[in-house]
């Protein structure tokens, strides 16, 4: 077995080191997220790590309602990256109500997680 760990651990290790990378299939050229062993588009088994541009668009959004005593409301989004992959995340820096579908956003790392801020 080589490399020494699976793609999920590799991804999480990179993230812990402050790097957000996604996969790109060497065979079909499409980007892949979340990280996998085989390309979900063509079945190819060589998936290289690449740094995405970080540019994305909010595909959908919701606000999880929570009592103030439990920490209050928070936002959850699905973001489509310019590379054509989608991920769950949150938009920071603005009120949950102000997050809108179609909003351009850019990726950053906070608390060891990928999050987005308005672009």
């Amino acid at each position: 077995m080589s490399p020494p760990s699976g793609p999920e651990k590799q991804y999480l290790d990179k993230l812990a080191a402050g790097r957000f990378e996604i996969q790109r299939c060497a065979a079909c050229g499409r980007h892949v997220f979340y990280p996998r062993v085989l390309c979900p588009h063509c079945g190819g088994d060589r998936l290289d790590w690449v740094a995405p541009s970080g540019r994305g668009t909010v595909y959908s959004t919701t606000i999880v309602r929570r009592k103030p005593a439990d920490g209050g409301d928070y936002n959850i989004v699905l973001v489509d990256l310019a590379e054509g992959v989608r991920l769950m995340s949150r938009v920071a820096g603005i009120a949950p109500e102000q997050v809108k579908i179609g909003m351009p956003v850019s990726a950053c790392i906070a608390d060891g997680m990928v999050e987005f801020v308005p672009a």
Partner: protein
Amino acid sequence: MRGSVAIAGVGLAGCGEAPGWTEIEIAAQAARNALADAGMTTRDVDGLAIASTNIFMSGLALAEHLGIRPKFTESSMVGGSSFLGHLIPATLALNAGLCDVVLVAYGSNQRTGVGRAQAGKIKAALDPQPFEQPYKPFNPPTAYALAASRHMHQYGTKREQLAEIAVAARQWAQMNPEAFARKPLSVEDVLKSRMVCDPLTVRDCCLVTDGGGAYVLVRAERAKHLPKKPAYLLGAGAAHWHRQISSMPDLTVTAATESGQRAFDMAGLGPEDVDVLELYDAFTINTLLFLEDLGFCNKGEGGAFVCGGRIAPGGKLPVNTNGGGLSCVHPGMYGIFLLIEAVRQLRGEAGARQVKDAQVALAHGNGGVLSSQITALLGTEATL
């Protein structure tokens, strides 16, 4: 497969609240009721199907509890749609002569059972989802809210239109003495109730109840000689394209487009032939998406389609005639109740809520977060 097997018995147990009962005990009660309905006992059963979110090796557990040594056991777990999914391998097993009587059962004490919070933590530890869990989705509502939000953006669907779905379900429930939630409900009530995940309020979300259900599947030839009018399986199709909501290709289009088409093709029928629909309404957005994806209206037009009481009692298209997961019963997984209500409608046993001259029923199950989609078409003898 068409017409080769039939549901010969159905039964419910513990719907609403069943404090002090375990999941397998509720399933066993439902099994007894379904078997009695078919003129049988557990001694007649040689095939078994069950799914559970909690019971490890549930097929073994149910067989052991009932004292059955099955020749065929099916315990695939694809979420709430599992009990429609069981129809397919059970039909193949019956037709291949592997067994003669398949009992499909489910039980849950989700409402009154203890340890739910702890169980959630254990499941998250066993099956971490590191690409979603860090953002703390409150699932399942978060996933369905994301789908509703996208549908509203893309097609101009309104919260009032989603609320109409909850109101229609409640009106059906008011005609069903076995339904859990029967108080009057208006569109305004739905809109004003507590927001859970925008745009879904608590009244856009299904009930959390206890309950169990069971059905008995036999070859068509045998069904003819049993006490109740058989509900023949005319078509079935299963499809899934994702597990996690972040991997769903298009949040406005479910795999019901595929499962429904295959079920209709097998049955040689189309949406215009269906007299009554039972759609897995864990959330109001489900009903809307499935009406579109199963071909009852065009994509994007579901909001307008459900307005004006079209799917409510007295409307043109009877949908979720028992009151659905929104108002009748929803013990964790709802799939088996779709088939039970479909069978009762085809038999003419549905009392005040009976759809007149129902010959073809569609039951559509959903599992996960709009993930597993399984469609079944059932019909009376006249449809064979």
